[in-house]
């Protein structure tokens, strides 16, 4: 692991990429320490793959710079960066055996045969593919192909492993297994992993830090817990599972951190996500935190649909002002039923309202 030990930080300094007049990535700046697992999270078209390709060198940047400690790398050709990359469709060489695929990068580096074989054996062991080593990629299952792709990327001891939605082609069960596997491999390498995904569960469970991107710009950088509990903006909140969005009026701060406001004619209290909130605000609530309460103590709504989820029910209701509300219920409710929905004040995040 000579290479991985030889650096401390990877720094992206206002990296940008434009396609003609379209700016796909703006001012992307972040400092990543060795050993960190970073997830780039965002909806499709947000610029996360562009960011990854700029780091790998497959896509030239149009502004900014990338540094490995004090060595500038964005001016190097792809072949000279020496980063491991795992592609969404694996991109295994179909005419080479698993061993030859994994050894390809070492061969390109003119590693002597003996050392190469040893390193390939190690990589094969790391991804647990000992019995498949002499097969062609076409003879492997999707999950096994993914492991080969990972082994091929890590065999060259890269300081940085880049993964572009590596699990999106796998079925749900395999995705969960491979998630643990990727985390384990990352820890055994001690290098930096940058992982692109649109699945917040994946990002939350894998990453040390998550970078949320939207329209080519960084919206928030934080630990999974920070992002889950305190999304900095409504956008990020929506992406982190706060599906309910409620317009409120007459907001007034209560102490430093709480805010009182009215929505659909009911007085509510929530956590202020910006200082000095007043006037119109928007409240964000997770469906799991919004539950039926005693009449008069919450938002009046009528049930539109209810769906069995195993341990509880997931419902959709319409509030008096027409807002669609997603909620959780412990009992099945008849459609058309009038109910009241409420949430703990600590679970209601209040953001400044859109300025008219």
């Amino acid at each position, binding site marked *: 692991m000579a290479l991985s030990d030889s650096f401390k930080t990877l720094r992206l300094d206002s990296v940008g990429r434009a396609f003609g007049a379209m700016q796909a990535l703006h001012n992307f700046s972040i400092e990543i320490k060795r050993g960190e697992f970073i997830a780039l999270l965002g909806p499709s078209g947000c610029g996360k793959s562009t960011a990854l390709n700029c780091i790998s*060198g*497959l896509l030239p940047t149009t502004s900014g710079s990338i540094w490995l400690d004090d060595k500038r790398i964005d001016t190097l050709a*792809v072949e000279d960066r020496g980063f*491991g990359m795992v592609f969404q*469709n694996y991109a295994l*060489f*179909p*005419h080479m055996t698993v061993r030859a695929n994994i050894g390809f990068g070492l061969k*390109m580096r003119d590693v002597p045969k003996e050392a190469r074989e040893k390193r390939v054996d190690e990589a094969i062991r790391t991804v647990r593919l000992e019995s498949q080593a002499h097969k*062609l990629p076409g003879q492997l299952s999707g999950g096994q192909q993914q492991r080969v792709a990972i082994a091929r990327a890590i065999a060259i001891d890269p300081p940085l492993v880049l993964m572009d939605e590596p699990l999106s082609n796998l079925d749900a069960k395999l995705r969960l297994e491979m998630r643990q596997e990727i985390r384990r491999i990352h820890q055994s390498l001690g290098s930096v992993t940058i992982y692109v995904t649109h699945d917040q569960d994946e990002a939350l469970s894998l990453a040390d830090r998550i970078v949320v991107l939207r329209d080519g710009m960084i919206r928030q950088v934080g630990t999974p817990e920070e992002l889950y509990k305190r999304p900095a903006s409504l956008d990020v909140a929506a992406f982190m599972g706060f599906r309910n969005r409620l317009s409120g009026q007459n907001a007034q701060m209560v102490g430093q951190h709480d805010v009182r406001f009215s929505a659909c004619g009911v007085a509510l209290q929530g956590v202020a996500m910006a200082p000095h909130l007043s006037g119109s605000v928007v409240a964000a609530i997770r469906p799991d935190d919004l539950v039926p309460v005693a009449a008069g103590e919450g938002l009046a709504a009528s049930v539109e649909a209810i769906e069995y989820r195993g341990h509880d029910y997931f419902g959709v209701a319409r509030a008096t002002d027409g807002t669609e509300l997603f909620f959780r219920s412990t009992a099945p409710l008849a459609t058309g039923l009038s109910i009241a929905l409420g949430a703990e004040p600590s679970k209601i995040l209040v953001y400044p309202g859109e300025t008219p």
Partner: protein
Amino acid sequence: MSDASIPLSVRLKAQGLDGVTLLVLPAALLLLALFVYPFSYGFILSFRPKDGSWLGNYTKFFSDPFLYDTIKTTLAIALPVTIMNLLAAIPVAFRVRLMRHQRLITTILVLPITLGTVLVAEGMLNYFGPQGWFIRTLTLFGLGSASSIKLVHNYWGVFLSLVITGFPFTFLLTLSYVSGIDVALENAAATLGARAAARFRLIFLPLLAPGLAITFCLSFVQAYSVFPSAVLLGAPAGPTRVISIAAYEAAFEQYDYSLASAIAMIMGFTQLAVVIVVLMSRNLFYRGPAAGAKG
């Protein structure tokens, strides 16, 4: 023994025979009438020479250098032309693959196909002829003269015309094979440290080889059966007396259809021999799909 309770039509369908199968009939009949029958007829005719002996035509062909040398002459034109077209088509296909206006460029490159060999030959006679623009321009710049450079009525005339009419065909086939290779494979090889030359040698070439072999065969067969340009642009009495000219002379100048059939058969089998050698070499390479993964 099949179960009698299942109707015959269902059992036939399970074997792949149903109403849709009948759609094959017109093509099958056409093939029978236009290929199988004439071919068999010619094959049998070639064993009935004028002198009455069984193999008379074949002994005649292989004992007369004026006849058997045509094989060498034809190969000497067809093989270099095919190799040259293929070698030229690969880099062009690699470049065009990455272009945004691929359709336009392909259309321009393919135009010569639509012109037909005779029209191209006429054009070449004017352009490359002693009074043509090509020689005039060279003379103007003092790079040569009509007496030192001769590009028509010899080997090079036929060679050039086969390049002009054969290249678009070779290029189109090559392009389809080249674009069939997943771009991610090249990207993956690059991230692993492979430079352009290594990427071509280790990734593209092995994956392209089977397709290039097919392209070679089709282009070769086309060049081997050269006739109009060998007559119009070549020296049909000598250096470009290709095998099809020998067959033509036997049939329409000596009115010996039996000998002409024998020459046609020899032409077919020499072609086949080259094609078989090339296709066999294909087995040395990987022949599965050239994608990076299952769907």
